[in-house]
C-alpha cells in the first residue's frame, strides 16, 4: 500500500534535488535572481508598498534625516525618500526592458538577414553598423533623445537604437558560423527552405550568446537610464527615478549627504544582479566553461 503511494514521488524529489543542486552550485545566480524577483514584486506592488505618495510635497518636513516615520528621511521638497525609491523601481525596470527590447527587435532580424544573405548587402550594412559603433553610446543616445523629445520612453528608445548594432553584429557572426555548418548544408541538400533553415537551425544556435548579451545589456540600460535621468533627459519630475533622486541629492550634498546613498545603492545592486545573472547564464550555456 505504502509502496504504491511512494511510486510517483521519486521523479518529483529528483527535480527538487536538481534545483537544490543548482542552487548550491551557483549561489550567485540564485542571489541575483532572487533580488531581481524582489525588485519585480516591489515594482508591481509599489502603490501598496510605498508608505507615502512619491510626489506629495510637505514643506514642513524638508531634508529630514531617517526616522521611524520616514525610514530613509525626506527630500528637499519634503517627499518621503523610501516611497520615491520604491516608485523608482518600476521606472528603472521599464526603462531597462524597453531599451533592450528595442535593441533586440531592431538588431536581431537585421543581423540574421545580413548574415544569411551576405554579399554586397552585408558589406554595406556592416560598414553602417561599424559607423554606429564608432559613436560614444551615451552621447549618441542623448543626441537622439534630444531630437525625439525629452522623456523616459524616448530616452530608452534611443538607448535601444544604440544597442541594435551591437546585437546585429553578434547575430550576424553567429549566423555566418551556423550557415556554413555541415548539418545546414545537409538540410539544404534535403530541400529545406530558407525560412525553415533560419527558424529551425540558425535561430536556436545563434540565440545563446544573444541571451547572455541581452542580460548584460539590461545592466547597461539601467545605468544609462540613471545617467539620462540624472541629466534630466530621462524620467521627468515629479515622477520618481533613482538617477533623478541622485541629481536632487547632489544639490544638497553639503546639508544632507545621506540622501545620496539609497538611490545609488539601488542602482549598483540592480546592475550587479543583471551582470551576475548574465555571467551565470554564460557559464551555464558554455560547455567548455562547465568543465572548469
Amino acid at each position, binding site marked *: 500500500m505504502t509502496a504504491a503511494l511512494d511510486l510517483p514521488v521519486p521523479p518529483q524529489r529528483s527535480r527538487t534535488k536538481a534545483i537544490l543542486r543548482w542552487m548550491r552550485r551557483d549561489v550567485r545566480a540564485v542571489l541575483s535572481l532572487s533580488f531581481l524577483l524582489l525588485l519585480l514584486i516591489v515594482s508591481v506592488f509599489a502603490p501598496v508598498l510605498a508608505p507615502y505618495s512619491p510626489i506629495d510635497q510637505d514643506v514642513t518636513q524638508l531634508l529630514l534625516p531617517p526616522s521611524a516615520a520616514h525610514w530613509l528621511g525626506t527630500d528637499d521638497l519634503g517627499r518621503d525618500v523610501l516611497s520615491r525609491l520604491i516608485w523608482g523601481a518600476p521606472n528603472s525596470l521599464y526603462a531597462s526592458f524597453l531599451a533592450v527590447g528595442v535593441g533586440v527587435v531592431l538588431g536581431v532580424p537585421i543581423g540574421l538577414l545580413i548574415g544569411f544573405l551576405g554579399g554586397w548587402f552585408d558589406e554595406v550594412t556592416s560598414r553602417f553598423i561599424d559607423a554606429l559603433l564608432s559613436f560614444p553610446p551615451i552621447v549618441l543616445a542623448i543626441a537622439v533623445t534630444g531630437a525625439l523629445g525629452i522623456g523616459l520612453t524616448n530616452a530608452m528608445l534611443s538607448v535601444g537604437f544604440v544597442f541594435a548594432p551591437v546585437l546585429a553584429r553578434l547575430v550576424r557572426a553567429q549566423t555566418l558560423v551556423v550557415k556554413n555548418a555541415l548539418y545546414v548544408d545537409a538540410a539544404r541538400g534535403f530541400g529545406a527552405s530558407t525560412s525553415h533553415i533560419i527558424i529551425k537551425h540558425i535561430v536556436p544556435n545563434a540565440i545563446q550568446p544573444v541571451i547572455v548579451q541581452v542580460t548584460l545589456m539590461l545592466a547597461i540600460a539601467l545605468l544609462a537610464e540613471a545617467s539620462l535621468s540624472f*541629466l534630466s533627459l530621462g524620467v521627468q519630475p515629479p515622477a520618481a527615478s533613482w538617477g533623478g533622486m541622485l541629481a536632487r541629492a547632489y544639490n544638497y550634498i553639503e546639508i544632507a549627504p545621506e540622501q545620496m546613498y539609497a538611490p545609488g545603492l539601488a542602482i549598483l545592486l540592480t546592475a550587479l544582479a543583471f551582470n551576475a545573472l548574465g555571467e551565470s547564464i554564460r557559464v551555464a550555456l558554455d560547455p567548455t566553461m562547465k568543465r572548469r
Partner: protein
Amino acid sequence: MGKILRLVGRRLWQLLPIIVFATFVVFSLLQLVPGDPAVVLAGDYASEQRIAEIRQLYGLDQPFLVQYGVWLLHALEGNLGRSLLTSESVSQLILYRLPNTLLIAVYALVIAGLVGVALGVAAATRVGTRLDAFITGLASLGVALPSFWLAMILVATLSLGLHWFPTTGAAPLLTDPWSAIMHATLPAVALAVGVIAELARQVRSALIEVLNSQYIRTLRAKGLSSGAVLWKHGLRNISVTLLTLLGLQVNRLFSGAVVIEAVFAIPGVGSLVATSALNKDFPVVQGVVLVLVVIVILINLVVDVLNALLDPRAAEA
C-alpha cells in the same frame, strides 16, 4: 616609413565608408525631430520671415542628399553652424570646451591603463587564489558602479570633507597646470573606475590564455624565470590586445564624460551636448557628436597602425 604610410593610406581608404556613414547619421539627427526642421532651427517665437531665411540658409528647400552634401562641405571647412541659443559659432564653442574633456579623458585613460593592467596581471599570475577572487570581485563591482554616484561620494568625502581637491570647475592646463591637474583628478578617477574594471577583466583572461600556451610551457621547461616569462613573453603577446582594448575605451570615456562633467560643473563638450539636447540646440548637438565620432575613428586608425608596428602579422590583415 613608406610601409607605414602605405598602411595608413589603406586603412584610411577602408575607413572612408565608415566616416561617410557616421557623418550621415549625424546629419540625419535633425530629421528625427518631429516637424519642419526650418521651424525647429529658427527657434521658438520665430517670424515667418526668419523661418524662410533659415530654410534658405541651410538649403532645407533642397533634396535631402543635396542638403547632406552642403552640410558636409561646410563641416569640412570647420563651419558647423551657430548655436540657436547664443548664436555663437558651434566650432568656436567646441574648440573652447574640448581641451577640458580631453584632459579628464586622457588622465582617466592613464590611471586606468596603469591600475587596470596591474590588477589584471596580478590576478592572472595568481589564478584561483584569494587575491584573484578579490580582484575579479572588485572588477564586477566596478562595471556595475554608476560613475556619477562614485563622483558624488568622492566630492562628499575628499573635497567637501577633507578639502584635498577643489569641488567643481576646471582650470586651463597651459597657464595653470597644477590647478588644472587638481581640478581634473576626481573627475578622472570617477571616469577611470569603469575602465579599470573592464581592463582588469580582459587583461586577466588574455594573459591566462597566453600563460597556458604551449610555448610558454616550453620556456618554463627551459628554466626561464617566471618574471622573464611574464615580462618578455606574456605581456608582449597581449600588447596588441591591450592596445586595441585601450582604443575601444575612448568611446566609454566620452560617454562617461557627459555625466561626470555635469557632476563637477566642467565646461567640456560632454556637458555641452547634454544641455544643448535639453535646450533643443540642435546645431551644437550635431557639432559635438560629429567631432567626438571623428576623434574616435581617428584613434582607432592610430591603434591599427601601432598594432601593425607591434605585430607584423596584424599588418597583413
